[in-house]
């Protein structure tokens, strides 16, 4: 039997200008079926991926931002967003979508999946990961 590994998906790029944000999300969703210990990291321009109000009709591209809200249903609920990256970009938690999950160990109470962490905490999260996928 395979051991459970700590997978960390690192997102550092803005959405739409390149495909990395969308295609990394596709890996996360498929990966969810493998029952590993999954966490997502959003830092540098990656924090832009989670902003509210993305309206893509006029650029003619699919708005894939609703997909982040489905992560909770896939048991992906450790979403780390870096404070310094938000600050540098004039963003706060209020600018980001509210991503939640239902905690089966707590009577299915709805909880926040996003945890805002410092760069030092993010470094520690990276250090503890077994497999780091960067997009």
């Amino acid at each position, binding site marked *: 039997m395979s051991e459970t590994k700590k997978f960390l998906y690192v997102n550092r790029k803005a959405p739409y200008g390149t495909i990395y944000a969308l295609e990394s999300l596709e890996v996360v969703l498929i990966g969810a079926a493998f029952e590993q210990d999954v966490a997502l990291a959003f*830092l*540098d321009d990656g924090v832009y991926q989670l902003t509210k109000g993305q309206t893509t009709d006029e650029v003619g591209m699919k708005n894939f931002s609703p997909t982040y809200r489905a992560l909770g249903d896939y048991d992906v609920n450790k979403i780390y967003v870096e404070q310094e990256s938000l600050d540098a970009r004039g963003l706060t938690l209020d600018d980001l979508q509210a991503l939640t999950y239902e905690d089966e160990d707590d009577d299915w109470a709805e909880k926040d999946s996003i945890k805002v962490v410092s760069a030092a905490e993010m*470094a520690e999260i990276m*250090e503890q990961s*077994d497999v*780091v996928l*960067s997009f």
Partner: protein
Amino acid sequence: MSQLHTVNKSPLDRNTLESAIKHATKGNSVLMIEDGVYGAMQGTQKSGMVSDAMNDISFYVLGPDLKARGINEGRVIDGVKIVDYSGFVALVAEHDATQSWL
């Protein structure tokens, strides 16, 4: 755990070297490859960023990429070790995981 961080872009082009250094913990290593090898050169605006981090982090640069770009080994920042592809492989094996800063 000890991580290996790879950086493949020049620090004057992208922020990946800066971000990698900021997120590397004590005992980690940073390997500069491809266009990232420019980060290993002395006398640039970013050279201090590498030297200042050497107490906690080990720095490496991929020799073949230096040569491809005509960078003389003498111009590499003191303390940055030059490795070839087999050295790259050894670094991957010696560290617990490898994180690529793209």
